[in-house]
């Protein structure tokens, strides 16, 4: 069994370890602040979905440490490759959280997408594992250019079953590129448990097949996630090649707002894991260290709330995209003739009344008694 890298105890049976070198109090507070920003975004997005303001949303409640820690380990020049479960990670790199919310609201074009090069944040990847070869190619290019730049890509344990994962791992090793593969092993791919996903005991076990170093970390511990990623990125930028990191955690929430975990797993398991969730646990650790107190804690919470509330307001103030958004940016150069014909075809008909922004819906009818008179 691989040893689990962990610094933060639970204030009870699991003991604290000293802060690793390279992090001072300011760093620790920033890592914590990022946890809180991510948590606030996630909880707000779920609420917005429930209110009918966003479409289906993939929550990450409990996985914030796997995002805050690795992101804090990056230099600004490193590239990151998120999946839909790290959808708001760009907000830690200057992508407007309103843009990410707009993406979940079903907006495209300038509303819902961002310039990947401006932020060194790849577009949010939806098809599982398919962004991993992109991280490898980007790392190859950085190495070719002799730039001290590395690529960091997140994926889930389910993604390790995909061919693209294995191709990316293999290419990265053969080419010895500066890439870090960060696996968030939350034990569940929608309803499919880890045991049905792979016959290996861990994801890090797979690194041996690619002759790649690997680290197993506590995925609820942002300091452990930071440390493993920091070491991997430094080795990568220094020409030491790629690393696989497995952050072991648990998907405490549902896969997405359309998913009901009661159908396939015991609620009690999630409740047990909840005790290890990173925001409260990190706050406890920082409090024990004397870095955080109640005043700072509520100031950080207030600031995150303001940031996300502003983003929600900005998202809601966006105009509904026009019909032309269908044809924008399909090509960087040139528009096929059929695009103008499509616009003409649309101009000749009324815009369907269904085309409008999501807005809060009336609660569903509970029966005939509620039906308005005259409608039957």
């Amino acid at each position, binding site marked *: 069994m691989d040893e689990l890298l962990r610094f933060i105890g639970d204030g009870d049976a699991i003991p604290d370890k000293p802060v690793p070198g390279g992090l001072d109090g300011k760093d620790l507070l920033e890592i914590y602040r990022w946890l809180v920003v991510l948590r606030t975004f996630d909880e707000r997005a779920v609420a917005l979905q429930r209110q009918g303001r966003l479409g289906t949303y993939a929550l990450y409640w409990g996985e914030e440490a796997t995002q805050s820690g690795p992101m804090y380990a990056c230099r600004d020049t490193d*590239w990151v490759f998120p999946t839909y479960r790290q959808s708001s990670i760009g907000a830690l790199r200057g992508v407007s959280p309103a843009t990410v919310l707009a993406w979940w609201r079903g907006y*495209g*074009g*300038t509303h819902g*997408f*961002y*310039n*990947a*090069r*401006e932020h060194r944040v*790849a*577009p949010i990847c*939806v*098809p599982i594992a*398919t*962004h*991993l*070869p*992109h*991280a*490898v*190619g*980007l*790392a*190859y*290019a*950085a190495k*070719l*250019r002799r730039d001290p730049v590395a*690529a960091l890509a997140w994926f889930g344990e389910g993604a390790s079953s995909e*061919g*693209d994962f294995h*191709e*990316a791992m*293999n*290419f990265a090793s*053969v080419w010895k590129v500066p890439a870090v593969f960060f696996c968030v092993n939350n034990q569940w791919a929608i309803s499919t448990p880890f045991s049905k996903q792979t016959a290996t005991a861990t994801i890090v076990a797979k690194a041996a097949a690619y002759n790649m170093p690997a680290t197993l970390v506590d995925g609820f511990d942002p300091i452990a996630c930071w440390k493993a990623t920091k070491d991997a990125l430094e080795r990568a930028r220094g020409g030491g090649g790629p690393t696989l990191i497995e952050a072991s955690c648990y998907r405490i929430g549902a896969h997405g707002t359309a998913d009901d975990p009661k159908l396939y797993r015991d609620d009690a398991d999630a409740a047990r894991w909840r005790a290890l969730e990173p925001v409260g646990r990190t706050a406890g650790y920082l409090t024990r260290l004397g870095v955080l107190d109640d005043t700072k804690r509520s100031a950080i919470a207030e600031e995150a709330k303001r940031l996300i509330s502003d983003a929600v307001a900005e998202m809601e103030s966006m105009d509904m995209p026009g019909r032309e958004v269908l044809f*924008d*940016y*399909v*090509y*960087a*150069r*040139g528009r*096929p*003739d*059929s695009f103008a014909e499509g616009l003409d075809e649309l101009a000749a008909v009324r815009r369907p009344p269904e085309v409008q922004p999501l807005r809060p819906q009336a609660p569903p009818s509970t029966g005939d008694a509620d039906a308005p008179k005259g409608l039957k």
Partner: protein
Amino acid sequence: MVEALNLGHHQAMASDDRVLLMGEDVAKTGGVFRVTAGLLDRFGEERVIDTPLAEAGIIGSAIGMSLYGLLPIAEIQFDAFVYPAFEQIVVHAARYAWRTKGQVPASIVIRIPYGGGVRAPEMHSDCPEALFAHVPGLKVVSPAGPADARDMLLAAILDPDPVIFMEPKRIYRAVREEVPQEPPLDIANGNGAGGEILSRARIARPGDDLAIITYGPTVPMSIEAADQLSRERGIEARVLDLRSLYPLDVAAITGSATACGRALVVHEAPRMAGIGAEVSSLIHERAMLDLEAPVMRVTGFEVPFPQFANEDDYLPSVDRIVAGAARVLDW
């Protein structure tokens, strides 16, 4: 055509250090068809890469290189080997511009030797171009001769959008023509007629009695069939070489149909939902009153590409094109 493509690679890589070549066996051996011979020695193994044998990995990493600002050319060794990369092409290469507000297109060229007629083993002779032409965000082109092959390759590299560059295997060593050393476009500066040559059809043989609309591997045999029609029936058939399969040169297609009043579409790929179906539809929608007869098609059949002993039964031929022309002319 092999030599012309080789020249194009040398010229592109010499004039712009962002250009890079990757694929299976492209470096040491110079590719199974020797299209990329000599590049490794001249440009080194960092820019001329023998990759692991994994097509999704090849196209996926090419996308990542493009994200960082390189201009990768990715070779798929044979047509039917592209399918593992289909997801990377469809969900990522085709949508990168769309998903980045037009700022970061996947500027990659995917070269695919395609089609039959060279007695290749099973799964080495497919014509998958319609699969790609159906995907918004891609450009799909196919040259039919050496000069076009070189010029279109350079234009494809210059084009910021992903280009599926289909190279007809049967023309690799079958057609010879002089290729001017100087390309018609300036790689390093991004100038020249690049957009034109990638999107405009060309009249490969003049004529006003019948438009034979085709591309890639069936262009030379269409010209031969037109010559035969001229000798045997006094019919002058125009051969329109599409060059670009997406976007289609709609004006050239309808213009040729209108000028001739009769049109026949020829391609090697299966008929169902092929390029010919789209060309025929376009003509019927826009030029029906100019037509003397419905548009007909001579294509591959809706069967898997056969073992090579039977490939000449499957492939369009001069005789089948002449017979197809007769169906249109005598309708």
